């Protein structure tokens, strides 16, 4: 069986002429990156009063998204079972484009209206950027997800 024919649920990562399961790359990489993030948190002094606990919390919560990111980067989608050969021609690509464009409009509208309202209120609002920026990202994800689901439901 050639490399191009074999498919699996989670796919493979190709390195040169060889290949290994993508998860075998992503999971250890995610754990290493999580450990690095935990170490960085301890060294930066943001791990709280208990360095060990802080290291563990940062490592655990960084490991999963890091593993996911590595998986997305290394997996060869042509080795994923059921993946269409031409995803750009599929209807889902159109939904993604429309949802992304719509969520950008949503973000501009919401942030613009909020900024306008706050500018008209004669009072200062001390804000923590560590909370505001993730909130904006979450808002973007929410708008995108809702729009995508609505488009999918219409079809």
């Amino acid at each position, binding site marked *: 069986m050639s490399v191009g024919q074999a498919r699996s649920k989670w796919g493979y990562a190709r390195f040169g002429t060889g290949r290994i399961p993508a998860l075998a790359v992503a999971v250890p990489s995610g754990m290493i990156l999580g450990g690095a993030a935990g170490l960085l948190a301890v060294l930066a002094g943001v791990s709280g009063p208990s360095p060990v606990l802080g290291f563990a919390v940062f490592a655990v919560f960084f490991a999963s998204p890091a593993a996911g990111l590595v998986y997305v980067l290394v997996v060869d989608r042509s080795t994923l079972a059921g993946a*269409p*050969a*031409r*995803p750009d*021609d*599929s*209807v889902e690509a159109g939904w993604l484009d429309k949802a992304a464009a719509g969520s950008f409009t949503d973000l501009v509208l919401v942030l613009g209206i909020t900024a306008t309202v706050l500018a008209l209120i004669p009072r200062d609002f001390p804000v923590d950027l560590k909370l505001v920026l993730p909130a904006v990202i979450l808002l973007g994800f929410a708008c995108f997800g809702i729009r995508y689901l609505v488009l999918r439901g219409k*079809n």
Partner: protein
Amino acid sequence: MNNRVHESRQRLGWSQQRLADELGVSRQTVISIERGRFDPSLPLAFRIAAVFNSTIEELFFPDDMV
């Protein structure tokens, strides 16, 4: 845009998944095209026509044409 993809597929006795595999797209794409809710790109329309040994004009036509 209306189309005769459903009739053409039925004539060959293919499932939606079989047609999707032939075209290299998702089954949902075939469903949406057959329902007239998704207009395929020009390259995809050419592939559909080729699969059915037909032409784009025979398969796809504007809404105001019967």
